[in-house]
């Protein structure tokens, strides 16, 4: 890696970037250098400013102070169009796909927008659009058939959307591709394809900047690591020179070791049993049972039916075959409300749109489920009782603020997730289904979420964790079910199995089923 003094050799350089949002000082003097053809891994805890620095590079935010040097030219701030013109393409954390436009348009419109320097008063070249989109879609390993190209992105599963977003980034002549947590909903196979793609991009002298919480992927990709803490860059260097412990330490300022969290053991009472359950063509013949205080992991590729299974157990999807028994009583779960009434809780995958009331207070978000139980004798909500309950939850979930009147949106993602999980403590469900409980959450937050999960199992709640994060399942579960093409293909003891074993089982069986 050459560090020449001249400006022009760097693709991009940030000097003394500060960013304030009202009273929040998100970035406190960031210096960073990006060179062509290199891969960068931007690491840091939730809320340390990673997304913010990216948004500054891609022109979404203007820095409060500092200088951006792009291709040797200095800017006080960039506009989205300037950044795009310079070849800075971004896959945002929220993907930033336009839900109502087709895949084709999402992928390829940007190219024509940029080549017209942002001018909108010009004709649209449909042919060029199709060609560009086709090529990019092929490059991310999707099949560019008409059905896909002409669907609105809102109709696609998350994993496909994520790849469409990546396709958009590489559809233009990119020189720097930024990806903010691009693999959160990708399965291992898809991640492999992405890693190959990155290698290809680098071979064409394109720089790639990753923001990620998944260290093992960063190690596989290699390149430089940039560590942020509290809005400052605390380290930059070759990733191979840092151990996991080093990085954790740099990010958090404290030691966190990887460990198996699961301590308790399931009780004998059977809480839930599915027999030959099925729903449409999403999943079939699912049978398993769950003991009191047991933690069951369910994993599989994104189209394996695991998401639908989670939804069906919690009243969001109708079960068309088989039956569900709760405490040996055959039952039906017709709606989320009925699931809750029967003691089944659900922490959805997408916490912002499905879980939290983002501009309502922490208090309201924590006691959401028990408003009807907080009544005093006038039929009003007993605020004292409610706040008591909310404080209790905050404490249990080790929230980093004691002010329960703050809007929940003011919390970082990890804390938000804790509120969402803690909500269920208020009704002590019999069964709690956690869907991707730590997606996009940093190490520190993960730690406290896992501890809280274990404490729930100790108290006799049966838990189901639906997740891609294999270490998470291994660290927390008693058993792990692997799903595939709508069926359970393997059942493993979490204490004795390992990641490799699960992957092999998952992929091997995938091919078997496919045949």
């Amino acid at each position, binding site marked *: 890696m050459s560090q020449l003094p001249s400006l022009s050799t760097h693709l991009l350089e940030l000097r003394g970037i500060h960013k304030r949002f009202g009273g929040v000082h998100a970035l406190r003097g960031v210096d960073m250098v990006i060179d062509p053809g290199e891969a960068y891994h931007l690491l840091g805890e939730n809320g340390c400013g990673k997304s913010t620095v990216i948004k500054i590079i891609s022109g979404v935010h203007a820095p409060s102070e500092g200088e951006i040097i792009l291709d040797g030219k200095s800017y006080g701030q960039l506009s989205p169009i300037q950044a795009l013109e310079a070849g800075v393409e971004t896959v945002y954390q929220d993907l930033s796909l336009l839900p109502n436009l087709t895949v084709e348009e999402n992928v390829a419109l940007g190219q024509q927008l940029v080549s017209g320097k942002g001018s909108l008063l010009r004709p649209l070249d449909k042919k060029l659009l199709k060609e560009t989109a086709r090529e990019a879609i092929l490059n991310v390993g999707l099949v560019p058939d008409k059905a896909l190209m002409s669907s609105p992105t809102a109709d696609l599963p998350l994993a496909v959307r994520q790849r469409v977003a990546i396709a958009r980034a590489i559809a233009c002549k990119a020189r720097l591709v930024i990806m903010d947590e691009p693999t959160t909903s990708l399965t291992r196979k898809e991640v492999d394809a992405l890693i190959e793609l990155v290698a290809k991009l680098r071979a064409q002298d394109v720089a790639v900047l990753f923001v990620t919480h998944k260290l093992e992927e960063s190690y596989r990709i290699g390149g430089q690591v940039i560590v942020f803490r509290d809005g400052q860059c605390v380290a930059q260097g070759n990733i191979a020179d840092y151990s996991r412990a080093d990085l954790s330490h740099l990010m958090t300022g404290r030691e966190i070791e990887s460990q198996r969290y699961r301590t308790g053991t399931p009780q004998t009472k059977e809480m839930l049993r599915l027999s030959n359950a099925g729903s449409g063509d999403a999943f079939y013949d699912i049978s398993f049972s769950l003991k009191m205080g047991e933690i069951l992991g369910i994993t599989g590729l994104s189209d394996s039916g695991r998401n639908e299974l989670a939804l069906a157990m919690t009243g969001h999807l109708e079960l068309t075959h088989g039956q569900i028994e709760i405490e040996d009583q055959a039952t039906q779960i017709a*709606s989320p409300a009925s699931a809750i*009434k029967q003691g089944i809780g659900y922490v959805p995958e997408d916490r912002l749109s499905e879980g939290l009331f983002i*501009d309502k207070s922490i208090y309201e978000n924590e006691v959401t489920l028990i408003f009807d139980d907080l009544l005093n004798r006038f039929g009003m909500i007993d605020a004292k009782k409610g706040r008591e309950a909310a404080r209790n939850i905050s404490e249990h979930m080790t929230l*980093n603020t004691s*002010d329960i*009147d703050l809007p929940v949106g003011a919390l970082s993602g990890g804390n938000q997730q804790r509120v969402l999980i803690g909500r269920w403590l208020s009704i002590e469900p019999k069964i709690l289904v956690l869907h991707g409980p730590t997606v996009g959450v940093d190490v520190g937050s993960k730690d406290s979420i896992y501890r809280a999960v274990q404490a729930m199992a100790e108290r006799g709640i049966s838990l189901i964790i639906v997740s891609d994060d294999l270490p998470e399942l291994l660290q927390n579960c008693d058993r792990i079910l692997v799903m595939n093409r709508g069926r359970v293909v393997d059942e493993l003891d979490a204490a004795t199995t390992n990641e490799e074993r699960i992957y092999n089982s998952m992929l091997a069986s995938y091919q078997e089923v496919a045949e």
Partner: protein
Amino acid sequence: MRKPDGNLVLLVMLIVILLITGGIMSGGTYLSLFNIQSMGSQVPEIGFLAIGVMLAMCAGDGGIDLSGIAMANMAGVASGLFAMSIFPVAEAPILFTVTFAVGCMVVGLIGGALNGLIISRLGITPILCTLGTQMLFTGITVVLSSGRAVRIGSPEPLYEIGNGYFYDIPISFLMFIAVALVLGVVLRYTPYGVKLMMTGANPKAAEFSGFSRFRIVTVTYALSGLLAGLAGLIIAARNVNVKWDYGTTYLLIAILVAVMAGVKPDGGHGRVINVVLSAIILQLLSSLLNFIGLSNFVRDLAWGALLLCFLFVNRLALVDYFNTLLSSRRDPHASKT
């Protein structure tokens, strides 16, 4: 209640300014007891409708109630015809009034519930649904009354509701304030109210939390209808007569009042007290213009300008700035380590 509500502060300041201006410009007549009473008795009609609009907006998903005034007129006409067919006005004034008043509320409640059912069960967008029911209700009123005004008459108790005073305060205004208070409490302190606001803020999360959207939406629109029914009662009590085309301009004005009160059309946010103040402001301004004798076309202009001013002030966050000077600001991240 923990943070002073910027909009509330603004509304209160505006009321004070209008009262002072009016007092000065009219040489005091504007502030005379008679005029204050007169203005007070004019507030409830539009006030009830505006609260109804607010409720619908709070329910989210493009919630709006365009059928308010149509429902008020329908309530007055239908309930009036019904009550008159049972009790002769002159002989049983109390029974008549009670029947009529209850009838108004029942008709409003049913009409509103119909809106709610159509929206939550059939999934029709509120704007289309209430536009359709607005025409339907107006049509029913026309059919019932053959398009003529229906004379409700003014038996003593009904007259009192519309024109009487309780310690110098118009009874209709007191009724309005009482209903607003009850609603304010309901929205703030009952599970229904809190759930309404949360559903409006994020319908999907509400569903995941097991709230019954069906029940919340139906109850909300039914409440909005109930308020329209009350508006119908007040109209009948004040004017002795009810008619299908009364108050056609109220449709937009009710929305104007709600919006000026800071109700978010996206749902999930709205305070009854702000709507009450906002309705009062509109009344003060409108009476002031009538007092000065300005052309009534200027009133339209003034309303438009006032609304845009509100938006500018909110945009520039002047009120927040003002508030920070008043109270020390909490930093959400202060506790972060």
